[in-house]
């Protein structure tokens, strides 16, 4: 094992004060739709909408992330292969990143969602900005209450 960082980046359980605080993996949605590069946009679009989502993560058989489809890509006309439509190599984040850091980054960079992956690039889930921001607010509200007592 390449140290505690590797353990954390794999999303494995820990003990300590940080373990009790929400992190990226805590709120990442495991039910995000996924698809393969060789699929066609038309079929993926139907599947994603039927699932009630506006995003889809492009993965291989081992769930390694290759790309991302957000609303803009899913709304495109036509039936091209996903490989041509997707956002390739999206920025991904490790499961142990504190949720307030995620919220600040996603707001600052105007990211509606971000894939959360293990250190070997496998998808854990998709973190939505609204979930990160809400959790960060709750966390700080709770901390302020404790400080005031």
């Amino acid at each position, binding site marked *: *094992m*390449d*140290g*505690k*960082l*590797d*353990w*954390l980046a*794999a999303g*494995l*359980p*820990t*003990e*300590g*004060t*940080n*373990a009790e605080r929400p992190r990226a993996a805590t709120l990442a949605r495991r039910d995000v739709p996924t698809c393969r590069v060789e699929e066609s946009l038309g079929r993926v679009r139907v599947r994603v909408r039927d699932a009630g989502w506006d995003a889809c993560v492009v993965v291989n058989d081992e769930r390694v992330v290759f790309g991302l489809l957000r609303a803009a890509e899913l709304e495109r006309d036509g039936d091209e292969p996903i490989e041509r439509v997707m956002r390739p190599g999206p920025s991904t984040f490790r499961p*142990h990143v504190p949720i307030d850091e995620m919220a600040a980054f996603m707001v600052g960079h105007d990211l509606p969602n971000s894939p959360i992956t293990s250190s070997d690039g496998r998808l854990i889930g998709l973190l939505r900005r609204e979930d990160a921001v809400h959790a960060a607010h709750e966390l700080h509200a709770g901390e302020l209450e404790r400080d005031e007592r």
Partner: protein
Amino acid sequence: MPQQIHDRREVQALIDRGAQVVEVLPREEFDEDHLPGAIHLPLPAIEDDARRRLDAHAPIVVYCWDSA
């Protein structure tokens, strides 16, 4: 005999078999996050405290922040 382990699955298997897990980082970092059941033995104190706090007859896994 000491050996380097790079595969966290091996570490997990050792933990499951009752290995003692030791973190050598400073107290503040240990308190924030440590592997389940880890013992804190910071590097400056390890020579003095290891014999007293660890079982020399059981496997011991020692870890730091990363492999650098």
